[in-house]
């Protein structure tokens, strides 16, 4: 989230698209009902299904899954054509006036530089035109044909309301109503918030889905303001925290990136991470990268990380490929190239795409370690559960270790919510049985591995034997110790260069903020964005001050929000170019002539003059990007691509299947189905009654939604003679499932490009363990292909067939 849950109450218009906030985030959704009840805010829902969120919406429109980009580019076109953009904002705070190099283009669904064999782009033409001073050339009038603004206009010209209807199946009148409602928020005193979740992420162009809305929000001037923003609703408790501390295989904490095997030393590594400003005076905050990185390395290896050894940069693993995302790992596993797998709080047998492939992959492991509070299906992938898990234990040699762990309610620590708030919590119960904390398990493993390395040496013992391990009980580091470590501390006393008697940072003290980090090894910090969470004043995450001056929803005294306790990112953009609030009633921070003051922690230096420093400080431009340069692998602008399995061809570029820059492995490409055999457009989702595959273990939740079902329209049910509540068999080119049919008015056939498209909804909460009835998950059916940029599997849009059935044979 750029903003916070509590900030949603400030909005005028909520658009829920690519998510189902009421269903999957019912507690956070209260802030939408607040906005509606207190401010008269309106709620728009765009979804293939009439969801629980739609049930309380002011306006609902259907859309075919996987066509959000066409819809959003259509809205952008409407806003530009009808002069409903926030011109001053766009001119000052986005890269709309920037000129793009000659040679950039887009034709037949492809940007310049495409290499079909590699399924990848040479992105060199997707760049700004730089002047002799090294800065980007700009045209304040936005008229230059190579200005980002003109390129964007040209790029989206095709997305007329008629085209949107043709691609998305959204009736034109409904689309235009939504355009009109959204366009109103281009006014300075109106804001819209976008609430989205995995409905946008789980596509082969998921990142571009989100980008499309971000661009629209920029055109409307809705980013950085109270009640605005791009708000990703996190689907797991603390999944935000997991991402922050390096969930992805190519990241290390604080969104620093892992080196590649070409970056053989620290200097080479840093050479591509300089982030020189692209406009005069810009902060380009990543210029501090080296401070964050060195402090991270110091926290990892302590005294063993020295200037002489590049702060132990060499001890970090290096990537030989762009990433070892889960699709890649399981593909390697499938090829028999992975020996062991640690599965910590993850149930891939039900979560990952194409369950058949996942099961085959796990069976090729030598060992599998599952750390989980619950008895997961993954830990029992070898078990013969009949139709529900058709495994042959005799043929599987994988040794499975199941380590019961504590769950969140039995642990102390912090959870990071969608709004980036680190909220400390205390255990509410003792762990049952032999359950141990993940910390204990990992520490015990470390201690034993270290002893082995110390005793036997080995190929590369250094990273293990030198790991900084200063905990009170080395066998079980505690939450407060790790929190202090992530916050950062002073390794050696720092004095003022001008006056060596003046101590700036005193050895051993906790840091106040990442602004104090050094690149010379005198500070250590496990996760720079968390710096400030546990200072000398104590645990900032445990703060529980509910006061809210100005009733802004900021709650600065409640817990700690990264970065620097900032509640709304890019809050500089809440004020105009001279530092006055765009809307005086919605003041967040303002320039008072000398400094920035207000209700939130400013995200630029408090004394940075308004016209000097742009609000988007993490970009070298200081502005937000409508044109993404080479930052996205699949194009600097979003473009409509069909899902890899689509009921209709891409009307804009009929030859292109899926996202042309998305990686797909050979056998997974072969396993894709086509609409002649699998005519219906399937989508997967969560239900309020359950949380993923956890709560089916809970009796009460199992009562509330006891049994696996799929949702189909009355029309499809009639066509296929399917009874409401009767059994159906749903199949894709990769597998099939049995489900009860819920025949509903909430799913309606869509007309796309003249063809009737039936949507099949498949919720995901059932498996073969737990209290609920045995069932299946959608991943028995889903394709093994991910988003081009971050490899999230495309499990929101694929093809299935549905037939009436007698249900699973009971033996």
């Amino acid at each position, binding site marked *: 989230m750029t903003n916070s849950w509590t900030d949603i109450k400030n909005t005028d218009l909520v658009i829920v698209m690519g998510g189902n906030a*009421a269903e999957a985030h019912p507690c956070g959704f209260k802030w939408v*009902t607040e906005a509606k009840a207190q401010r008269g805010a309106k709620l728009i829902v765009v979804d293939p299904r009439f969801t629980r969120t739609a*049930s309380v919406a*002011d306006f609902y429109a259907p859309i075919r899954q996987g066509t959000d980009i066409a819809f959003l580019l259509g809205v952008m076109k409407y806003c530009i054509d009808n002069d409903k953009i926030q011109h001053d904002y766009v001119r000052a705070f986005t890269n709309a006036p920037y000129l793009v190099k000659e040679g950039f283009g887009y034709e037949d669904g492809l940007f310049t530089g495409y290499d079909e064999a590699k399924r990848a782009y040479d992105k060199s033409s997707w760049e700004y035109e730089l002047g002799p001073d090294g800065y980007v050339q700009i045209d304040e009038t936005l008229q230059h044909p190579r200005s980002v603004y003109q390129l964007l206009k040209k790029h989206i010209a095709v997305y007329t309301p008629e085209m949107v209807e043709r691609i998305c199946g959204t009736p034109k009148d409904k689309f235009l109503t939504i355009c009109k409602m959204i366009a109103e928020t281009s006014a300075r005193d109106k804001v819209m918030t976008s609430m989205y979740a995995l409905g946008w992420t789980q596509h082969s162009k998921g990142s571009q889905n989100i980008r499309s809305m971000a661009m629209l929000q920029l055109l409307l001037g809705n980013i950085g303001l109270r009640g605005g923003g791009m708000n990703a609703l996190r689907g797991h408790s603390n999944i935000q925290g997991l991402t922050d501390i390096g969930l992805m295989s190519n990241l290390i904490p604080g969104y620093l990136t892992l080196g590649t095997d070409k970056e053989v030393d620290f200097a080479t590594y840093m050479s591509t991470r300089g982030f020189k400003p692209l406009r005069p005076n810009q902060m380009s905050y990543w210029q501090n990268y080296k401070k964050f990185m060195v402090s991270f390395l110091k926290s990892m290896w302590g005294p063993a990380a020295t200037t002489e050894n590049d702060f132990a940069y060499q001890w970090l693993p290096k990537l030989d490929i762009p990433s070892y995302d889960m699709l890649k790992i399981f593909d390697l596993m499938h090829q028999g190239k992975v020996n062991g797998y640690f599965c910590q709080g993850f149930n891939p047998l039900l979560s990952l795409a194409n369950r058949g492939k996942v099961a085959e992959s796990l069976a090729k492991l030598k060992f599998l370690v599952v750390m989980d509070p619950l008895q997961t299906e993954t830990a029992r992938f070898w078990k013969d559960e009949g139709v529900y898990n058709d495994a042959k234990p005799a043929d599987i040699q994988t040794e499975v270790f199941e380590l019961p762990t504590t769950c969140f309610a039995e642990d102390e620590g912090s959870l990071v919510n969608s709004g980036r708030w680190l909220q400390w919590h205390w255990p509410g119960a003792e762990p049952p049985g032999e359950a141990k904390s993940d910390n204990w398990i990992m520490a015990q493993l470390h201690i034993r591995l270290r002893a082995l390395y110390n005793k036997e040496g080995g190929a590369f013992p250094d990273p293990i034997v030198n790991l900084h391990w200063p905990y009170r009980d080395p066998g079980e580091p505690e939450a407060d110790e790790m929190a202090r470590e992530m916050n950062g501390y002073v390794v050696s006393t720092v004095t003022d260069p001008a006056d060596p008697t003046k101590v700036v940072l005193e050895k051993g003290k906790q840091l106040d903020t990442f602004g104090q980090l050094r690149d010379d090894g005198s500070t250590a910090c496990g996760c720079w964005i968390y710096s400030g969470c546990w200072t000398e004043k104590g645990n900032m995450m445990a703060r529980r001050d509910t006061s809210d001056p100005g009733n802004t929803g900021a709650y600065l005294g409640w817990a700690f929000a990264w970065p620097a306790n900032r509640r709304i990112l890019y809050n500089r953009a809440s004020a105009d170019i001279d530092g006055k609030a765009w809307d005086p009633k919605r003041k967040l921070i303002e320039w008072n002539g000398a400094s920035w003051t207000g209700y939130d922690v400013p995200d630029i230096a408090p004394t940075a003059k308004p016209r000097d420093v742009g609000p988007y400080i993490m970009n070298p431009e200081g502005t937000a990007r409508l044109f993404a340069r080479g930052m996205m692998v699949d194009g600097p602008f979003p473009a409509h691509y069909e899902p890899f399995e689509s009921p209709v061809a891409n009307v804009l570029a009929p030859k292109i299947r899926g996202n042309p820059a998305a990686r797909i492995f050979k056998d997974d490409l072969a396993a894709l189905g086509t609409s002649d055999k699998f005519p219906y457009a399937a989508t997967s989702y969560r239900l309020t009654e359950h949380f993923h595959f956890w709560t089916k273990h809970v009796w009460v939740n199992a*009562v509330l939604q*006891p049994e696996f079902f799929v949702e189909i329209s009355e029309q499809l049910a009639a066509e296929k003679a399917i009874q409401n509540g*009767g059994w159906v068999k749903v199949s894709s080119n990769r597998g099939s499932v049995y489900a009860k049919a819920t025949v*509903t008015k909430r799913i309606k056939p869509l007309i796309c490009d003249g063809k009737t498209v039936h949507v099949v909804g498949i919720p995901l909460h059932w498996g073969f363990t737990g209290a609920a009835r045995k069932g299946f998950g959608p991943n028995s059916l889903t394709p093994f292909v991910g988003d081009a940029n971050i490899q999230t599997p495309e499990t929101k849009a694929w093809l299935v067939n549905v037939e009436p059935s007698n249900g699973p044979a009971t033996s």
Partner: protein
Amino acid sequence: MGLQSQDFARISATNMRPPDVRHDFEVAKLIDVSKCIGCKACQSACLEWNNLREEIGFNVGSYTNPHDLTPNSWTLMRFTEWENPQSGNLEWLIRKDGCMHCADPGCLKACPSPGAIVQYNNGIVDFVSENCIGCGYCVKGCPFNIPRISQTDHKAYKCTLCSDRVSVGQAPACAKACPTGAIVFGTKQAMLTYAETRITDLKSRGFQNAGIYDPPGVGGTHVMYVLHHADQPQLYAGLPNNPRISQVVELWKGLTKYAGMAAVGFAAAFAFVHATIARRNDVSRAEDREAEHLIDEEAARGRQT
């Protein structure tokens, strides 16, 4: 019963009027259907707080699970898909069903067991299990089809409006758990006032018939709804349009009860009076003798045939 008789406004099957001296505020739960997202937090909170175990059922093509109220499920989200003929829009009407805590409770009226159903001064209608005899009369008394009789202990169960929580100043568990504030709890007056603001909001969003459901036929209720279509409550999974205690039940528990007692009493009294004043209907000596004659005659006649 745990509480003293001063806490009651009414007690089932008793002619004793409680003194009704403790004038608490009348409480009410307001369920704003327009804010409800059907998440069933109320249902799980109810099961959890009351420590109830419902059976794990089956999917029958609906989100309504379990499929009806049961002795263990005292509240239930009922889902209705309705296409509004005026706007052409689909509406997914989700109503939390459960005891309405009527001001004039039909269950209490029907109940034959003294003290099995009580109404507190604050308006909550509660079933007192130890006095319940499991006759099921309350089921017939209720205009909303709420009470359910356990097949295990043959006692009636329903929402208590968390009278245990309310008595110590807490809101009912469902209201506490509701994430969107669709369920709110307070004094009835405060709830009515608050409902007005919700109705104004709904009218501003085009729901011209938005209104409160506080049916006068049962004297008003202590569980009320804000409905988008207050003119058509039956859309919401058959919420009665104008609920009132069945005339049949009124007759059964009213006139019949008194007339029946009177008739039987009168008959008994008549018999008593008649027995006292009427001439004895006894066999006289003469009749005995005549009988002997007749027997002989007839016996003789019998022998001849």
